């Protein structure tokens, strides 16, 4: 594909993916988890750590580049970067990696995320009063205006926006629950997923305890997960000589807007619309040569289920307020118009802070997914304000 748009478009490809098991107690450090995922991804790519000259992760990732380099035996790092905005920045690692490869700044870039969201020093969803207005340049400075009011968790930050969304469009908890039922149905057949062989009904969803009323039940939340994933990106020219079917990064973009941050961003005028995702879609479906109709599978950041519906609207797969009907009509399922989060998503598979969605998108394009969508050729991967379009066309 010769894509228009930014000059990096279509010039880099995902050639390797790797992961650890996903669990609630990894029993080893994030550094070790990252080492395991990175070497697995390089093995999948048919490359060695000596081939790696670029590293990309999240600003909030605890694994230092220096430690990773000295552990897995990388010889020389030409390019490294970190993406802010936490999970909302997930897909930014693909933008950074593709840009680095296409520009020649690096030849083989590894994107990684290692996390002990459940067994680590602080549970990811736990209620904690942070001692600083910033946390590792994560894009969380407005959090300080939440802390004195007990608005201490990602669920509580997102609930404030989600309640407004539900009010604006008459969305009910059951409407959101139907999306969770679909995610869990995918997870039920995914051996790597937390939700493997754990069936869940809408009644189960409705009966689960409130986390943040009226929008987030327990079963609307992703699983705090321990684990690591890694993705290897190189040029399409080099990808042609490697064992896996190259998955081209046909488009990649970010859209961090004025007054936005991770999830504690409550200051834009209309919170019923995820305006960062609107802007992201304008970029992804703007000059890169892709239309929404081209998307065979969508992997959409679902830390909490209300934002899955909000992103379906913001990305333009349905109109404002229409996601509840879009979901109820079965469009997210394997036979729907937009099979979505076919690994079970972050809610059903596990929460490696969004990057595990990229692995599933890659598997879909290779034809190796557990819940394989026939003839998947183009996959959208998005997380709020960052996204990419992966393709084998």
């Amino acid at each position, binding site marked *: 594909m010769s894509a228009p748009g930014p000059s990096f478009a279509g010039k880099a490809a995902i050639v390797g993916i790797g992961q650890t098991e996903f669990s609630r107690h990894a029993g080893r450090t994030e550094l070790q988890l990252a080492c395991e995922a990175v070497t697995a991804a390089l093995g999948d790519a048919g490359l060695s750590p000596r081939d790696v000259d670029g590293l990309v992760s999240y600003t909030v990732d605890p694994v230092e580049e220096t430690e990773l380099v000295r552990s897995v035996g990388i010889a020389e790092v030409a390019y490294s970067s970190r993406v802010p905005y936490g999970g909302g920045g997930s897909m930014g690692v693909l933008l950074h990696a593709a840009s680095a490869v296409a520009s020649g700044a690096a030849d083989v870039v590894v994107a990684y995320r290692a996390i002990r969201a459940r067994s680590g020093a602080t549970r990811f969803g736990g209620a904690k009063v942070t001692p600083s*207005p910033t946390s590792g340049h994560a894009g969380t400075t407005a959090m300080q205006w939440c802390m004195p009011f007990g608005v201490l968790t990602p669920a*509580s930050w997102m609930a404030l926006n989600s309640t407004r969304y539900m009010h604006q469009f008459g969305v009910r908890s059951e409407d959101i629950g139907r999306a969770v039922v679909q995610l869990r149905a995918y997870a039920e057949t995914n051996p790597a997923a937390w939700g493997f062989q754990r069936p869940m009904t809408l009644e189960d969803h409705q009966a689960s305890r409130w*986390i943040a009323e009226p929008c987030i039940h327990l079963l609307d939340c992703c699983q705090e997960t321990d684990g690591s994933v890694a993705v290897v990106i190189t040029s399409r020219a080099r990808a042609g000589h490697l064992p896996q079917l190259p998955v081209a990064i046909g488009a990649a973009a970010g859209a961090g807007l004025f007054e936005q941050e991770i999830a504690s961003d409550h200051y834009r005028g209309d919170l019923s619309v995820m305006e960062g995702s609107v802007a992201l879609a304008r970029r992804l479906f703007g000059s890169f040569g892709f239309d929404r109709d081209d998307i065979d599978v969508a992997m959409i950041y679902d830390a909490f289920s209300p934002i899955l519906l909000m992103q379906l609207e913001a990305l333009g797969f349905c109109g404002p307020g229409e996601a509840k009907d879009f979901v109820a009509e079965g469009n997210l399922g394997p036979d729907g118009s937009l099979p979505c989060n076919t690994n079970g998503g972050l809610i059903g598979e596990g929460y490696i802070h969004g990057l595990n969605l990229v692995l599933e998108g890659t598997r879909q394009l290779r034809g190796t997914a557990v819940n394989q969508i026939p003839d998947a050729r183009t996959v959208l991967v998005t997380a709020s304000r960052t996204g990419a379009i992966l393709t084998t066309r």
Partner: protein
Amino acid sequence: MTTAEVSHAADGSPPRRPAPLLTDDNAFFWEAATEGRLVAQRCNGCGRLRHPPRPMCPDCRSLEFEIVPLSGRGSLYSYAILHHPRHPAFDYPLVAALVDLEEGIRLVSNLSGVEAAAIRIGMELEVGFDATENGGAVPVFRPVGADEPGRPS
């Protein structure tokens, strides 16, 4: 201009609410709240009110501003009744609120004095102040005319 007494627990127990993080950029807001006043930054260049505080006006780039009093009245833009997880500094369920002040800025705060079933987006609110653990106070809200701060049931 609102000046209100800072509320303490009826049983006289010391406040558990965590103190806000004070920086050179935001201290004026919290220090005013401790005195029972709700204030915001107003740009001397273009007159725009802004919150959260910041040193430069994002509209006109002026570094000059004054601290102005607010009426303390607003409406409920959104809310969430928080049940889990629970932090020992708060009582649950805890109502988190987004309050659109009549001057046009928004605050994250708490809502009290209303039963959960009676919470309505758009309801008119007025400010009060609740003590924090370090002897400070933060602005919190209740429905206009509510007699007693209460908790959702």
